[in-house]
């Protein structure tokens, strides 16, 4: 592969990265790798670095690993390439492999050199992850990993105090050791934090702080317990429009190192803001949601402080995220009576479907999840189905009492179910008036219980591709088992009922050919069909 060819492929990758088109990215990687193996000389280091960086920004770590492997195997083993490869290993959980690669890199690149410091920082990150993954401070090797993590970060920071990211991590891990009751050697984390905060504040005032500095400042302010200061830095960072990778790093740090959830009264609002920005930025993963504010009022009260700091922009994201959480409360896992998960369902107002069905909420799922007679193998009868609202603590699964409407899997693939009771305080999902524009830029959000597991919001590459009056195609690689999930527009209004995904989905509007896509049924088609019946069939 000549350099122009490689450059063209990297340019293609750049386009794919802009829309989080991970399917195309994988295919481009295939071609890039095949080309690399055909050439006698290694790929140009700049191109390799750019390609790896693009994959990182999409959080496409499997492809990043493959490409890194191919670079190293074909002789492109520049320090930057090795470092990015190690990063992919860490992100995909191959921590021991990452440690070996980074130890080797650190032995090649001296302390104080750019790559040497980066390698040591990533080693600190690797050991930190080992400690966090252990999930138990007393586990074999856990304390040792934490000590190594602190030592790796501190080595760089103490040698060069301008390496604030390393210092911040050292401070956070030392604080974590305090919280976990582990005696770890090192300075007072608050002293490190204060020094770093002063330094970044000066840099910011001089207009010299970058986006990573803003995140570092927020985190050291947290080490100092200065909430208002931390929120001010978070605001600055969000205004700088960080990409998905940057956001994910911050979210991971809050969740894993600090153990914060959205209902944390001290810091949870910051996590909510970052998650909502993450959903806006898209990027390679689903967000698992297993914590809700205990009471809407409590969240309101708490977010008041955040709104004060963030002004209208901050209030938006909190409000938007709150609305997302409200939708989550209306989603149930459809199970049989022994608790086997079958699919997802969600509540809509019955009168939105058919005025004669009354004002109560009813549950909507796919006919291939629940129908009578069962539409296919694995489908259960309404009598055997219960709706388990997993976000609502202390609520037993609710029996299905009536099948109000169904349309088979090859038609609208929908079943409308009346439940024995409707959970209190849950708002049925509102319906969108129209489908979003099919201009390739509209984001959709799918909420459900993939494979019957925890409730998740898919934010992965979730772009609307096309739609007609009945079908909606989107590139949101929902995990298998998301049948019956609601598909929302950006305003959290229901636009479709998810029902299938296929690598070779036939295109709409009679166009020839196939593409990789998920398919939902336009909800307007379902409401029109429900208003038409009589009865089931």
């Amino acid at each position, binding site marked *: 592969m000549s350099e122009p060819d490689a450059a063209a492929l990297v340019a293609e990758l750049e386009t794919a990265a802009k829309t989080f088109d991970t399917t195309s990215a994988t295919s481009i990687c295939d071609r890039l790798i095949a080309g690399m193996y055909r050439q006698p000389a290694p790929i140009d280091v700049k191109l390799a670095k750019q390609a790896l960086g693009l994959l990182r920004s999409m959080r496409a770590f499997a492809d990043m690993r493959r490409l890194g492997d191919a670079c190293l195997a074909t002789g492109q083993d520049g320090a930057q390439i090795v470092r990015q490869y190690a990063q992919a290993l860490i992100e995909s959980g191959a921590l021991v492999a990452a440690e070996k690669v980074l130890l080797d890199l650190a032995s090649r690149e001296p302390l104080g050199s750019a790559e040497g410091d980066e390698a040591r920082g990533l080693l600190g990150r690797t050991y930190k992850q080992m400690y966090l993954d252990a999930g138990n401070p007393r586990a074999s090797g856990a304390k040792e990993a934490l000590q190594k993590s602190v030592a790796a970060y501190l080595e760089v920071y103490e040698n060069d105090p301008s390496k604030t990211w390393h210092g911040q991590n050292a401070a956070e891990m030392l604080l974590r050791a305090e919280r976990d009751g582990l005696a770890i050697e090192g300075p007072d984390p608050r002293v490190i934090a204060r020094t770093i905060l002063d330094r970044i504040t000066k840099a910011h005032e001089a207009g010299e702080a970058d986006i990573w500095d803003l995140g570092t400042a927020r985190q050291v302010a947290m080490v100092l317990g200065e909430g208002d200061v931390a929120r001010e830095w978070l605001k600055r960072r969000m205004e700088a429009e960080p990409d998905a990778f940057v956001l994910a790093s911050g979210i991971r740090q809050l969740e894993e190192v600090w153990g914060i959830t959205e209902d944390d009264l001290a810091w949870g609002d910051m996590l909510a803001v970052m998650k909502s920005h993450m959903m806006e930025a898209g990027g390679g993963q689903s967000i698992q949601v297993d914590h809700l504010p205990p009471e809407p009022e409590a969240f309101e009260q708490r977010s008041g402080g955040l709104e004060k700091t963030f002004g*209208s*922009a901050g*209030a*938006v994201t909190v*409000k*938007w995220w709150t*609305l997302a959480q409200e939708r989550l409360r209306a989603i149930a896992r459809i199970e049989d009576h022994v608790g086997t998960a079958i699919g997802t369902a969600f509540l809509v107002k019955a009168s939105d479907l058919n005025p004669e069905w009354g004002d109560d909420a009813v549950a909507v799922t796919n006919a291939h999840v629940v129908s009578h007679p069962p539409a296919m193998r694995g489908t259960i009868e309404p009598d055997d189905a219960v709706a388990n609202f997993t976000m609502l603590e202390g609520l037993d699964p609710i029996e299905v009492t009536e099948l109000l409407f169904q349309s088979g899997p090859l038609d609208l693939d929908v079943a409308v179910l009346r439940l024995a009771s409707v959970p209190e305080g849950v708002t049925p999902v509102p319906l*969108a*008036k*129209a*489908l*979003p*524009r099919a*201009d390739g*830029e*509209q*984001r959709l959000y799918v909420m459900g219980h993939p494979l019957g597991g925890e409730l998740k919001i898919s934010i992965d590459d979730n772009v609307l591709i096309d739609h007609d009056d009945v079908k909606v195609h989107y590139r949101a690689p929902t995990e298998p088992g998301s049948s019956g999930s609601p598909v929302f*527009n*950006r*305003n*959290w*209004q229901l636009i479709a009922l998810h029902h299938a995904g296929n690598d070779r989905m036939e295109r709409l509007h009679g166009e020839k050919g196939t593409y990789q896509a998920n398919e939902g049924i336009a909800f307007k088609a379902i409401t029109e069909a429900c208003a038409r019946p009589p009865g089931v069939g």
Partner: protein
Amino acid sequence: MAHITFIHGIGNKPSIDELQRVWERALADADGVDLGAEGITAEMVYWADVMYESPSVAAGSHESADTAMELGEPEVDVDLAEAALAADEEAWLAGLRGKLNFDADGDDEYAPPMEDIGAEFERIPLPWAIKRRLMKVFLRDVHHYLFNTDSTPRPGETYPCQDEIRRRFVEAVQRGAEQDGPHIVIAHSMGTVISYDCLKRVPECPAVDAYMTIGSPLGLDEIQDKLQPGWTRDDGFPHDKVRGDWVNIYDHLDPVAGLDPAIANDYRKGGVNMVRDVQQTNPGAWRHDAGKYLGGPQFRGHLARILEIESV
């Protein structure tokens, strides 16, 4: 679903795609009206290239954030002071300059003595150099349009401004009329003069369902004078072409709209006020910004009402 035809205001602009993106984002930001999510199509009528050589690099230019108003060297010569103008044009310009309450063609750095500053302008917290430069752009763009002056933005490319911009607007409205659902025109600044001119005075311009003007100078006598024949104070409302509301949003401290902000009494239908004049307070010093108008609660409230949608 609905369709919106946007038309921008005075000054150079970024590329058409970028400008439309900036406007749509301003509309959607902060829990606003997300056109894409609502399935609402839109088209920007772009005319900056009729007067300017190439798109501006700074996003938004005269419509962007306050920082963009830290003006450097002018991108083009917008000074009409030394242009050779016909007597009627000179007279018209003199009238409009008089309204501005200071000499827009003077030295950019000159600030008038306090006693010469009218109370109206004292309240506008804008540096004089910026205000004067804005008014130069305003005078030039509005003059070129209303007098159909030839413009040669690039070598070998000459347009009679009004003919060319009218053609673009009318064609966009024709395309919008073919879409499903209500069709709304949203115009800013000089775009309000162009859209009004077409809706009132160009017979082939199709009708629209609603009309929203923001930061409009349509209240100025000098502009109304040049919209004749067609405009009269008692029958200025383009009722043949605007089937529903005309909502005019202004900020008193917008240097363009603030000259004569409320226009209902100037664009009546059969002697009756029909235009809904709505005051909105835009943030910051630079109140003429289209983005700030699009992001304001009054504007969004009326747009959501017209579109019959609920935003987040």
